[in-house]
């Protein structure tokens, strides 16, 4: 168990709790920066994929994990980010301007969408965002002159000051670009959480009525959360477009929306760590399944049997397991493990037990 002696208020305001923690994160940063020299190109591509998921995950985590507004439609905002970015570049806007602008536009679209659905709670909000996801998919098809309809668009090469970045040609550079965006979003997110607005978000999640009584403007704060969340998700969408190379309406379908939500649940709702853990799971699951399958077919000599849809099936199973046995996700399990070792041998089984309550009806609002 570590005791931190705080000598000024800055000790609580700081990004890290204590120096060793800062060192751990510095080490992690060194590792991810050095990654392209440590592993092969294929793996760098996979790591980029994980980072893109993590950015989108952070976006949704802000909204669902911290503000308590579940969204089943975030693929729509990935689509907005992706299409606006690519269309802008096609019209001569330089990439360095187009990417942040795509984020801003996705954020603004998020605010506009949020305004009418703000009054909805819980399940109704989930259904409304679900509808938004489906509608966006159809809208992409309708808006064919801009979006290419069902054929889709091909992402142009990224050019930054004459330097051409391509996912296949220069995977390391594309990885660094994604890493940079990840770090920027991460920094903004962390800053927000230690500032009044971030606290207002969590306040809204835990008790709207009490947040209001403390002077939090519910409508505006929720809209802000939506905007920021959709902005980050839009950035991830833009990067996903370049990562995939070509994309159409099906790239951003409902399943993606649902996967995003499931990802942050597996990672652990209500923590930034959760977004990253979830991204790792969802990013490496296909490889993991392939490995296991090859292992099994190697032992039993089945040849290369493929079962279509096995990924989502296993994903569903993992999710059911988490919700039943570890609703706080991977991050929650990690915190428990850490506490166990810190307090050893004094850890109690019920230390993190949540009180169970009788069902409070959400029908009467």
């Amino acid at each position, binding site marked *: 168990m570590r005791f931190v002696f705080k000598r000024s208020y800055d000790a609580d305001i700081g990004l890290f709790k204590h120096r060793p923690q800062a060192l751990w994160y510095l080490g992690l940063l060194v590792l991810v920066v050095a990654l392209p020299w440590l592993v092969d190109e294929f793996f760098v591509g996979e790591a980029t994929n994980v980072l893109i998921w993590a950015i989108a995950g952070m976006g949704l985590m802000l909204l669902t994990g911290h503000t308590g507004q579940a969204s089943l439609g975030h693929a729509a905002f990935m689509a907005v980010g992706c299409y606006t970015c690519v269309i802008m570049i096609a019209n001569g806007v330089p990439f360095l301007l187009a990417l942040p602008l795509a984020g801003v536009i996705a954020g603004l679209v998020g605010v506009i969408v949020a305004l009418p659905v703000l009054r909805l709670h819980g399940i*109704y909000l989930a259904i409304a965002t679900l509808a938004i996801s489906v509608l966006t998919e159809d809208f992409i098809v309708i808006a064919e002159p801009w979006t290419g309809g069902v054929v889709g668009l091909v992402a142009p090469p990224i050019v930054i000051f004459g330097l051409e970045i391509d996912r296949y040609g220069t995977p390391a550079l594309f990885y660094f670009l994604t890493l940079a965006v990840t770090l920027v979003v991460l920094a903004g997110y962390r800053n927000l959480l230690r500032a009044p607005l971030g606290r207002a978000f969590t306040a809204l999640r835990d008790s709207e009525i009490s947040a209001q009584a403390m002077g939090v403007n519910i409508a505006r704060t929720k809209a802000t959360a939506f905007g920021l969340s959709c902005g980050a998700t839009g950035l991830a969408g833009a990067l996903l477009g370049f990562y995939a190379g070509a994309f159409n309406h099906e790239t951003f379908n409902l399943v993606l929306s649902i996967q995003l939500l499931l990802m942050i*649940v597996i990672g652990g709702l209500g923590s930034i760590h959760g977004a990253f853990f979830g991204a790792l799971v969802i990013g490496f699951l296909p490889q993991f399944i392939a490995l296991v399958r090859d292992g099994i077919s190697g032992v039993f000599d089945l040849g290369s049997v493929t079962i279509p849809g096995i990924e*989502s099936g296993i994903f*569903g199973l993992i999710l*059911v397991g988490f919700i039943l046995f570890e609703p706080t996700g991977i991050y929650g399990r990690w915190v428990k493990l850490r506490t166990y070792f810190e307090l050893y041998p004094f850890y109690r089984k019920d230390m993190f037990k949540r009180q169970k309550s*009788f069902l409070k009806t*959400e029908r*009467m609002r």
Partner: protein
Amino acid sequence: MLHCRQQCDGNHPVWGVGELDLLQLSISGLANGCVYGLIALGFVLIYKATEAVNFAQGDFMMFGAFITIWLANSYYLGINFWVAVSIAVLIMGMLGYLLDMIVLRRMFGQPQIAVVILTIALGFILRFLAGAIWAHEPQSLEFPLAGEKITLGGLVLGVEEVAVILVTFALCGLLYLFFSRSRLGMAMQAASQNQLAAYFMGVPVKRIQSLVWALGGMVAAVAGVLFASKGAIDPSTGLLGIKAFAAAVIGGFGSLPGALIGGIIIGLVEPFAAYGLPAGYSQIAPYLIMLLVLIFRPHGLFSQVQKKKV
């Protein structure tokens, strides 16, 4: 719905629509709407009784249909159609009961959204299972009366469509009688209105909830049978559940007749939107209606829910 639109477009290449065509269009829309309505009915049943929203209801429907196909179709087991349907309904009822007993009961007292995510995951699993067992090609149920037509003064109706409509209304009547007359039905109502009070009055709330899930599974199985006998079904058809959501929302999520009417509205809107609007726009219609209802009448068109002051 795709299936319907192809059929209608095939019959009427010209835009002019006669009265008979309109009627025929309405009836095929009505038949589709009945299926949506039945899935929505399942949502609402479960939601009313347990406050859980079963996002896997569409997949329940799909699964029930596949079990029936597996039992009844000649290239599978090929047993008698009616026996197959009864068995499928029973199996789905058991599945619902077991799911609640093993999985959902553990969710007691957890936030609603956790249940939503859980049922989405269950849907993924069901879809995967169906794909693994019965493959991903669309399949139809071999309906014994298939292909026969009923002629009513110039109006030619597929017997499947008529059957769908009749069965739906019969099922609704049965459910109405069940809830208003039977002891179990009334206990279900009591448990849905106030869990704690129902506990105190000696209603076995947990078992009742499992039974409601069983009922939800059975209704889904019937919907699946109806759907598969008038069109083809594949594992991803479960996503149709979203349209049923629209139906449930339009009906007000808390009302059983509302769910059915919502389903019928969606079913009727679709073919007419397909006629009146250019391709692409028409499929938006159900979701657009749902979104508008959510924004302007969040508790649906037919809901008896009153707004409570905090």
